[in-house]
């Protein structure tokens, strides 16, 4: 596979695939306990099937506020 988007923001992965004119599809993964305050959609898994890149994406919290501020 030409690309490695693991952990990359969906928007960024889409931008690169669009730039390279590669066909792709997005599958949103919903877990049992999804974050309600997620701020980032990132690539969890990617596969190339029937000439199409399939991106499995999940939602994450990336702005973590710690006790140290």
């Amino acid at each position: 596979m030409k690309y490695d988007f693991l952990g990359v923001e969906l928007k960024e992965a889409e931008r690169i695939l669009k730039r390279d004119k590669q066909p792709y599809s997005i599958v949103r993964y919903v877990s049992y306990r999804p974050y309600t305050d997620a701020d980032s959609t990132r690539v969890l898994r990617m596969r190339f099937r029937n000439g199409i890149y399939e991106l499995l994406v999940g939602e994450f919290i990336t702005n973590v506020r710690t006790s140290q501020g």
Partner: protein
Amino acid sequence: MQIKHEALETAATKMDKTLGVLRKELVSIRAGRANAQLLDGIMVDYYGTPTPINQVGNIAAPEPRLLTISLWDASILHEVEKAIQASDLGINPANDGKMIRLAFPEITGEKRQELVKLAKKKTEEAKVAIRAIRRDANEVFKKDKKASIVTEDDYEILEKEIQTLTDKKTKEAEEILAAKEKEILEI
């Protein structure tokens, strides 16, 4: 954007496990034909350690109604016989000092019908379990729809997917039963 829900994956795994249990249960229904898997689950006291019978010797079915167990260690012959007698196999083992022979009697037509009934009951239980798994998944989808985690369209897709999965696994259960029924009624 397509959707993949963890509950759907869990449901598929659980349904497969249910079918695995059904297969195991149906194998233990003795259809007259000798089958090494009939001895699965029988434990032998091997120098104080409970050991599966298939690990203490070589099990073979030289004839359709005969199972032989050639023990690696002939000194535990009586322990193995005791374990077979204590199991619900209902077969009395015979031995020649080295090898244990289990002769399976021919079963009557009436008994065959009883076994078919039992197999059907086990399959029905598996189908009920599969439907319960579907219900659990649907409840998760409903909850997520209510919490706006999944959209109305996604909910419909997920509902359809779980139904397709349920139909597929129910059909598989019926196929397992059909094969067992054929085996039981085979004379």
